[in-house]
């Protein structure tokens, strides 16, 4: 069930990079259709814009959605009847056309600047220093290997297949509590694997976890991890009857 959604998202990222924004996409459509930018066939362009952003998954991006809404509004305004003799009619497309022309000019400048930068890059100055690397990511306490190892351990515990079907499966917290209490009576210290038992199902994992939390709350045991994402160690709590 998660498959198609994941694929859509990756396509979204890839295709989004082809256009630097909704105006770029609009210009692309206008060039493809070879229509006059100052007399924009708004209904046609609006439909194309909508179908392209749907196709590319760009309809998830706010900037594109805003432009889609704008196009539809202009399309609707164009359909309104014009009263005869009303010479103060303002073309609803005017603002969009102005922005498109302005943006088209910027794109031309981008080409010019790109060429200038390429030409400059062919000549070296003395003591050239490489541009500073990108800002370092926020410090993380764990490295990728730790994270992957932790994820693998969690995934390994989950029995396959993982179905997204909602089936009422009551947790057996009482059973898990009884099992852990027995273990506590036998051993002072044991691991998560001992607590959850072999071939644990998802329900077993959840039941055991809740039981452990509950017992920890009641001060029957303490839970510890030697490091983030490390294996969980369960220790029998020292009876506090003396206190």
């Amino acid at each position, binding site marked *: 069930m998660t498959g198609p959604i994941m694929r859509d998202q990756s396509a979204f990222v890839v295709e989004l990079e082809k256009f630097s924004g909704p105006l770029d996409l609009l210009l692309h459509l206008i060039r493809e259709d070879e229509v006059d930018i100052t007399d924009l066939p708004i209904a046609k362009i609006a439909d194309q814009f909508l179908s392209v952003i749907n196709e590319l998954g760009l309809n998830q991006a706010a900037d594109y959605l805003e432009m889609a809404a704008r196009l539809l509004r202009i399309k609707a305004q164009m359909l309104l009847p014009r009263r005869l003799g009303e010479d103060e009619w303002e073309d609803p497309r005017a603002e969009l056309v102005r*922005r498109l022309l*302005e943006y*088209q000019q910027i794109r*031309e400048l*981008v080409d010019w600047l790109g060429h*200038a*930068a390429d030409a400059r890059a062919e000549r070296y100055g003395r*003591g050239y220093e490489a541009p500073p690397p990108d800002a370092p990511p926020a410090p993380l306490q764990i490295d990728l290997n730790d994270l992957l190892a932790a994820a693998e351990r969690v995934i390994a515990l989950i029995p396959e297949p993982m179905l997204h079907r909602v089936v009422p499966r009551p947790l057996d917290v009482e059973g898990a509590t009884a099992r852990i209490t027995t273990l506590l009576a036998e051993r002072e210290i044991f691991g998560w694997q001992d607590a959850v038992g072999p071939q644990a199902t998802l329900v077993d994992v959840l039941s055991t976890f809740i039981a452990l939390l509950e017992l920890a709350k009641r001060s029957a045991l303490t839970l510890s991890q030697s490091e983030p994402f490390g294996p969980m160690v369960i220790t029998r709590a020292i009876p506090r009857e003396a206190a």
Partner: protein
Amino acid sequence: MQSLAKLLEAALFAASRPLTLEELASLDPTAGEHAVRAALAALRLVYADDHGVELVEIAEGWQFLTRREYAETIARAQFALRPRRLSPAALETLAIIAYRQPVGRLEVDEIRGVDSGAVMDKLVERGLIEVVTRGEGLGRPLLYGTTPPFLEILGLKDLEDLPRLEELSVALRRPTPVDEPE
């Protein structure tokens, strides 16, 4: 070669960035700007043909740069790194700021049709744009302009080197302010 030209040659050789006329003139306070200009012209002539480097007017200053024909060889030998290319988004933002400066972020967003905050932060970080003043409007927004390094990475002498808008193929009138009758 006269001694002033030799002094300028030494300074330009030592520097890792373009030196402005004022900076060069400060080397010899007795010389005067006119003499420095003349010496620079003479120096440029010396390096015009018979050298692997040439004296280039760039970023409101002067700098020795290698000749273009050696670009490939030097890059291949990895004696020097080529600067990282700017992304289309960065170039768009630079183009808008170069022509509209001083300009605020909202206007850049408006012209590009997308949020430009992250791109502008990056350009500030790379020293290609900087806050030059604050606007009059609501919240006194920060207004940005281009820096000498901007001219430097494009190999421009000054902002006048940018193409004039009317030279571009799209004839665009700037939005003319409409004087609404009250």
